[in-house]
């Protein structure tokens, strides 16, 4: 069969499209749940109305976003069976368990408490209502943990044995699957990357309003929260990325060699800034490099040996039999760079922002601003940025919203495509994982249907987000400020309209 339409190719494209799309909503859901919960906590503790307005504003954007995350997640639960039935048969004994845990523990948590939170403003006392959004947040984090443990097992299978008689892999140590260093570092990295998305989202939208001098108290607070989140998450992403890189150098050297387009092993090995090469011949034509840095990233030692693509390919051929064990090198190489580049760019813009909008530190008293003023953007102690440059900072900050999303997507594309030709590294090849019974027509149909549907929904979602972003934080009503004291709502006025209704 023509390779372009082979079921494996189509099934991979479909998985790529539906999963990358799903993951546009996931990190924002994870981070905004916690940030909204934080803002609501501030409201409950301080009774400062700006926090409640911020909670309502970010909460609404959170809900528009999570709706998409939830519905696109449904596909993930069934897609393995539909397009990857041989994968499911072979690893279901292991891979199914964290998925079932995720559903039983995390999904129920998330979905039940989000309903309580959305509709609960006039039905729950305020502390219980606050607890609900925290429950949602815990649910999103647990969900991430279980699914990442499952993915980590595909990256680095542990705690299993091969049952020859049944022709499948079987679980022998679930604890090891949940706590192996791949799972823990990947969880650390994905969580920090998620908060990078949420931090940048808050910074971008706050910048949009502050540049227009609108909704200042709420947006000022949000900007600061966003910047701090962005910076902590950005540093965390860098640290966890370094840890994960070291783990991957040991567990999947091919992926990391591909990430660097390091064709032949070197000691010391350089870090590549730019490379353009010939995949068939297995070498780079152009390469700009920093000597020794790759050795350091891999082994904490500037002079150590790092094996190259050609060496590892040869070693894997000896181990697993003849074949090409190289992933798509340009995708791995550039995916790795887009991930780091966009992630670190957002961190830099965040650090710059926190410095420019600082409250007092190294700031002349005349340039300090009050709670209801747009912060001055001040580079040196006494010198604010010119209005023109200041305007540029707000515009750059707005666009930064997209950076961590691009970084997240490329990170996943890199780590998944970098593992090829394996679906479970060293255990099961991707081409052996597809459903043998499904036809090209079926897979093509579902791919077209999902892609078209997702494209339409993306337009709808983005337009809604823009509408509610532009609308800004809502004015508070009498009912907002007088939450019920009894579970189920007060009985004062039985005919009062619901605080929130579909």
């Amino acid at each position, binding site marked *: 069969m023509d390779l372009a339409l082979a079921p494996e190719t189509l099934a991979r494209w479909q998985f790529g499209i539906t999963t990358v799309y799903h993951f546009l909503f996931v990190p924002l859901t994870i981070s905004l749940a916690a940030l909204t919960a934080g803002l609501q906590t501030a409201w409950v503790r301080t009774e400062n109305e700006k926090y409640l307005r911020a909670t309502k504003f970010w909460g609404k954007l959170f809900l*528009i976003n999570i709706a998409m995350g939830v519905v696109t997640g449904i596909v993930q639960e069934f897609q393995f069976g539909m397009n990857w039935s041989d994968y499911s048969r072979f690893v*279901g004994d292991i891979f199914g368990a964290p998925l079932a845990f995720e559903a039983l523990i995390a999904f129920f948590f998330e979905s039940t408490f989000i309903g309580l939170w959305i509709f609960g403003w006039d039905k729950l006392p305020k502390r219980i209502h606050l607890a609900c959004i925290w429950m949602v947040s815990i649910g999103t984090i647990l969900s991430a943990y279980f699914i990442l443990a499952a993915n980590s097992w595909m990256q680095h299978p542990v705690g299993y044995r091969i049952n020859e008689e049944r022709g499948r892999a079987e*679980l022998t140590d679930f604890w090891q699957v949940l706590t192996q260093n791949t799972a823990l570092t990947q969880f650390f990295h994905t969580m920090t990357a998620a908060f990078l998305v949420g931090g940048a989202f808050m910074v971008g939208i706050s910048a949009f309003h502050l540049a227009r001098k609108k909704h200042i108290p709420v947006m000022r607070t949000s900007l600061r929260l966003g910047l701090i989140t962005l910076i902590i998450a950005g540093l965390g992403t860098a640290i966890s990325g370094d840890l994960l890189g070291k783990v991957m150098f040991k567990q999947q050297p091919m992926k990391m060699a591909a990430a660097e387009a390091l064709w032949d092993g070197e000691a010391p090995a350089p870090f590549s800034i730019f490379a353009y090469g010939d995949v068939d011949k297995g070498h780079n034509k152009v390469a700009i490099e920093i000597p020794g840095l790759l050795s350091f990233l891999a082994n904490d030692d500037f002079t150590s040996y790092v094996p190259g693509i050609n060496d590892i390919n040869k070693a894997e051929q000896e181990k697993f039999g003849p074949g090409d064990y190289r992933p798509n090198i340009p995708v791995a190489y550039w995916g790795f760079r887009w991930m780091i580049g966009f992630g670190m760019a957002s961190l830099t813009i965040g650090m710059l922002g926190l410095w420019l909008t600082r409250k007092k530190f190294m700031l002349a008293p005349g340039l300090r601003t009050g709670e209801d003023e747009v912060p001055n953007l001040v580079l040196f102690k006494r010198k604010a940025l010119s209005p023109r440059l200041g305007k540029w900072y707000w515009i750059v900050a707005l666009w930064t919203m997209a950076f961590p999303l691009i970084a997240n997507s490329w990170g996943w594309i890199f780590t998944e495509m970098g593992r090829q030709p394996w679906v479970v590294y060293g255990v099961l090849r991707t081409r052996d994982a597809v459903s043998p019974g499904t036809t090209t027509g079926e897979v093509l149909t579902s791919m077209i*249907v999902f892609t078209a549907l997702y494209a339409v929904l993306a337009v709808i979602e983005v337009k809604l987000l823009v509408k509610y972003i532009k609308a800004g934080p809502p004015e508070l009503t009498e009912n907002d400020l007088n939450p019920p004291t009894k579970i189920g709502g007060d009985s004062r006025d039985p005919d009062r309209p619901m605080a929130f209704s579909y």
Partner: protein
Amino acid sequence: MELHDVWFVLIAVLWIGYFFLEGFDFGVGILTKLLARDRVEKRVLINTIGPVWDGNEVWLLTAGGATFAAFPEWYATLFSGFYLPLLIILVCLIVRGVAFEYRAKRPEENWQRNWEQAIFWTSLIPAFLWGVAFGNIVRGVKIDADMEFVGTFWELLNPYALLGGLVTLTLFTFHGAVFASLKTVGDIRGRARSLAFKLGLVTAVLALGFLIWTQIDTGDSWSLAAMLIAVVSLVGAIGAIKAGREGWSFALSGVTITAAVAMLFLALFPDVMPSSLDPEWSLTVTNASSSPYTLKIMTWCAAIATPLVLLYQSWTYWVFRKRIGTQHIADAH
């Protein structure tokens, strides 16, 4: 009783939970067209399930995930085999979830009408297709010696399975109407009751036909007992709604769903997906199941998590126990 038998029961429980809960919210979605006289009444109906539909749907995801973990072969054969029907169901559930969340987020009439249409169709189609799917599972489909589904999409649309689809469709709509009568106040409540009664009669005729057909084809004495419970409770549910006992009627329509699903699973056991080509090739609780170790871990997880889920989901229903009428719907879009 070995662990794979326990998991057969637990999978049945998850599907019962799903059909019991999402059954009425599918029903309510369908009733937005059959029962509501105007836009405000539509909103009353939608808001009766507003806080809970998402949690209800997770029962399906859990059934899917648990099948993957406990019976990987079943999961693989079922979802790769019933590819197109599942695709349609997934598309419906995606659109449905977005429809609930986004419908009221814009004031334009066109926007809201489109999402209302979506809510109706995306409730109706899965309500029908789940019955078709289960009809086929129980009846048996073409499965070869490698556990691969080798039938076609059109073969899934056989009379028995289609009847199964009509049963779930009407049963869920009836269940939804009873739920609506229990959760609304005012004019719509009375109309929900009388519509429920009529729907109940239609459901009874179809369900009786389908269950007897099932019993004759694949039943045993256990499934007969479940069938009798289903039939008696359905009659009871219809009688109760006629008498205006909404709570009783809802409980009994819930028992009907429980017993009917239980009957299908009893008729299946010990198969999970019988092969119509050769009984030797059927997927069973033994040849489709995971290793005892995996099942043991899963059992612990289910034993701890499921009661908690039931507890906090019940609490949600208690929090939102008040009936909703047109007066509770705010004017602003």
